[in-house]
Structures are given as C-alpha cells and as structure tokens.
C-alpha cells in the first residue's frame, strides 16, 4: 500500500501539490488524472523520491520513503515514462536487463529473464539485439514496460505511458496492459491527462484539480455516476450516463428465444450463426453480437443499430442463442433508475 500523508509540494511561485492524502491499495491500479498543473506527475515522482515533498510524508507499506536509500528504493520500483526514455546506446535486451544488472544478477540470468519479458510484452526475440532507434514508438514503449518489470518490482509507476503513440497502437497497448496486470497483479500508479484512459484502466481513479487539490477519489463507476461537484462532472465529460452503462453486465437482462428475431427478419446460416437482417432494401449486416458477460452498453448499442431493434446473443460456437428486445431494455433501464435512486450516494 502506498500512502500520501498530508503531502505538500511548493515551488517558488506555485503550489504543485496541496495537502494530498491518499491511500493506494496493493495489487490495484490507481490512476491519477487531471488537467495540467494539477500535480499528478509531481505526486507520482514523490513515490520513488525523484521529487521530495515540502512537507508531509509518502509511505510505502508503512515505511517513509524519505528514510530509505534512494538508489535501492528505486531499484525496487518500476518506472515507465512517455517516450520510454530508453538508453539509446544499449540494445533492447541490455536495456531491459538494466535493473537486474544493478542488482548484481549474472549476465546469463539477466539476459534469459530479459528475453522472457520481451515476449511477455509482445515483442519477438528478433528485437533483442536491435537498438532503440530502430524501433517504432509503440515498440519502444513496450520495451520501456519490459524494462520496468525486469526486477519484478511490486510497485510500478507509469507517467503518461501511452500518450506518445497513435490511437490505434494505444488501443493495443491498453489491452496488453490489462492482460499483463491480470497476470501480475502489481500495485500500479499511473498518471494520465486522458479521463477515458483512466476509467478504462484504473481500479481506482483520483481526479486532481489545478493547484494540486484532490477533487474526488473512487472507482470509475462512482466517478461517472456520482461526481462530487461541477468540476469533476465536467472533467469526466459528456455521455456520463451512457458510459456508466459499460460497468453494468448484460446478464440480468431478460432474454427471449431466437425464433422471435427470425420472425422479425433475422437470417441464420446452417450452423445457426446470424448473417444479417432481411429488410425491404435487402440483407443488412448485423453489426455485431454480444456474449454472456458483455456490458449493458454494448447491448443497447446493438439494439439501436439493428433495423428490428433487437440485439442478438451468441454462444461460444457463434450460433445465436437468444435475443434482447428494445422494449425489454427500456423496462430494464427504468428499473435500474429506481434501484440507483434507492442507493446511498458515494
């Protein structure tokens, strides 16, 4: 667990962090997000002592970071930054093996471990002997992550790790991040200015205001459904309602038999897989299907997109096994509103 205890950071002329008190739980991803000047990067860098607080303490598992040897502390914390900051003069493999080398690992051990890690982050062995200048931005970022993971640190700090790459690459990196975190379960503190990224990747999100004040700290759902003030509501952005539906599972929706959809124009192939909707204009593509476990938001999107107002569910083999009618969706949303009104606010 990482604790911020009344942390203040003042620079001549401005306050970067203003009495921040926060508890970042072990094994979870906490995202610090906010407009520029809100102190998110400064706060992050106080965890590995790249910056020292003006007052207040930063604790890792109860121990003040200020009392520890800086270099040793940092060797136990992974640090990933925008543009990766790779050593241009070392090969990819040597870059990844840096912290193990500092910790005294043997050459053979650390190279083997580094190769494994490269694979873990989705880079094949052929990248090992290349230099960073030969890699694309997205590839460099992956190497940066592998380097941070190399000594298997319990804590990872990530400062805008995905903002320097284009949106398509970023999507891919997001997916990989979620997959890795599922496997590794590290304590991750991430900084981003992109609220959507924060909501997508974080278990907990802390929204900071300019001047270094904490505006709200909670789960992404809480932020979307119960923003604490105008600033948070605006920062979280439009479509809050729609976006909060991503957190609801579609599993409690009433599912009707497929035959009803066939009557409304759904066309299936011999294996029972949906191929399209028959309309007056011809055969229209389905636009997608959903499976058990998908979100309410996806189902609503599908229903809106289909000419019959019906979302089609498929089983593991791709065969249609149920449908959700838009009437049921409206009823479901009404019931949901009722439930939320009865809930105590966050």
């Amino acid at each position, binding site marked *: 667990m990482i604790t911020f205890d009344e942390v203040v950071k003042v620079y001549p002329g401005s306050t970067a962090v203003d009495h921040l008190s926060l508890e970042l739980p072990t094994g979870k991803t906490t995202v610090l997000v906010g407009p520029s000047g809100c102190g998110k990067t400064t706060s992050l860098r106080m965890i*590995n002592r*790249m910056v020292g607080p003006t007052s207040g303490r930063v604790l890792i598992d109860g121990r003040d970071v200020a009392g520890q040897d800086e*270099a*040793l*502390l*940092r*060797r136990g*914390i992974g*640090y990933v*930054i925008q*543009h*990766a*900051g*790779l*050593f*241009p*003069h*070392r090969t990819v493999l040597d870059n990844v093996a*840096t*912290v193990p080398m*500092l910790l005294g690992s043997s050459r053979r051990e650390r190279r083997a471990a580094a190769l494994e890690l490269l694979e873990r982050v989705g880079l094949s062995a052929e990248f090992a002997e290349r*230099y*960073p*200048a*030969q890699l694309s931005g997205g590839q460099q970022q992956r190497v940066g992550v592998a*380097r941070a993971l190399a000594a298997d640190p319990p804590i990872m700090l990530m400062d805008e790790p995905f903002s320097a790459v284009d949106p398509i690459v970023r999507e891919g990196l997001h997916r990989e991040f979620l997959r890795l975190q599922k496997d590794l379960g590290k304590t991750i503190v991430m900084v981003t200015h992109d609220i959507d990224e924060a909501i997508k990747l974080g278990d907990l999100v802390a929204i900071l205001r300019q001047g270094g004040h904490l505006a709200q700290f909670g789960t992404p759902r809480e932020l979307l459904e119960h923003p604490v003030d105008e600033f948070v509501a605006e920062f979280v952005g439009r479509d809050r309602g729609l976006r909060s539906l991503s957190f609801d599972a579609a599993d409690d929706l009433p599912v009707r038999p497929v035959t009803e959809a066939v009557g409304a124009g759904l066309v299936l192939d011999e294996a029972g897989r949906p191929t399209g909707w028959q309309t007056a204009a011809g055969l229209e593509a389905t636009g997608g299907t959903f499976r058990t476990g998908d979100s309410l938001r996806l189902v609503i999107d599908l229903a809106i997109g289909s000419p019959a107002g019906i979302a089609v569910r498929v089983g593991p083999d791709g065969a249609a096994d149920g449908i959700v009618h838009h009437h049921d969706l409206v009823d479901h949303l009404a019931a949901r509103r009722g439930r939320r009104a009865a809930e105590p606010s966050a």
Partner: protein
Amino acid sequence: MITYLSNNGDTVLAALRQHIVLALLPVLIGFLVALPAGYLGVRYPWLYHPLINTCGVLYSIPSLALFVFLPVILGTKILSPLNIVVALTVYTVALLTRTVADGLRSVDELVVQSATAMGYRRFRRLVDVQLPVALPVILAGLRVATVANISLVSVGALIGVGGLGQLFTRGFQLFYIQPILVGIILSVLLAAVADLAIVLIQRAVTPWTRFQTGERGPA
C-alpha cells in the same frame, strides 16, 4: 619530390616521428584533463560559463605567442620541445573541455532521469549512460583537436622544434620548394590518417549511431 625523399629519407622520417609525438602526446594528456574538467562544468552549472569563457580565451591566443610565453611560466628554455607539448595540451584542453561539457549536456534529459529512476547512482550513471551517449560528440571534438594539433606543431619550427616544420624552414631558407611540398603533404596525410583512425574507432565504439537520424549522428 621523389629524389628529395630518397636523398633525405632519414631527415624526413626523423621529422615525421618527432611530429607525431609532439602532436599526439598533447591530445592524449589534454583529453584526460578535459574529461573531468568538462564533467565539472556540467555537474556544477555555475561553473559552466566561467569555465567555457576561460577556455575560449585560452584558445584564441595565437600559437606562436603561447610557444614563446610558456618558458616564462615553466622556466624552460625557449627552444625546448616541452613548450610545444604544453602549449598544444593547453589548446586541446581548451577545446575539449567545452566539447565534453556540451556533449554531456546534449544527452537527452529523459534518458538521464530514466537512469536515476532505475536506481543508478551518480558515478555509475556517468560512466554507464552519460559518457557513452555523449561519445559521438566528444569524439567529433577529438578529431578537430587532433587535426589542429598536427597542423600547429610545424609552427614550432620557428623556435627550433617543429617536426615536419623543419622541412618548411629548410626549404624556405634555401629557396627550395621540394622539402616544403613534402612537409605539407606529409602533414596533411598524417592529419587525414589520424582523423580516419578516430572515425573508425567511433564507428566501432558507438554502433547505435548507425541507426539514428541525422541530427544525432556524428559529423
């Protein structure tokens, strides 16, 4: 020219040998002095400008003036080769200190911060990260210093010690062009060989620069 060479081969060879020593020794010593000096200019930012300015002043002093001035400070005889070596070392230090300082400063700040964040301590970070990355710039400066030194040694002929410069003064006194030409050609060749040698060393020692775009690559 060939006849001149065959008749005076020994003199020319001796002159060449002396020239090489007088030119390269200062480069070596100067480099070893400039490395820590340049580092200090970066480690203590307030030191940078005074250091660079002093180096600038030293570098602008004409060579002949420095050659004749040093005996006063060092207590050597005017005609001693030591004056040449010390003077050229001063020039080399003046040039390379700035190169080392600027080279270290040119290392991407993000790379340095990355190194710190991973747990590098100061000295090891300098040796493992900052110096290697700055090497192309530093070696480019070394090329300039080496070539300049090789050219300057011959001026020493005016105070009696000049390596290949002796060929110039001899030719001039006798109004005979051959030794002058031989001297110039050998001097230029020597400079070209030394320059090439450093370029080859640089390619071998900094393989990553092959893949970088123009801005960061060696001159």
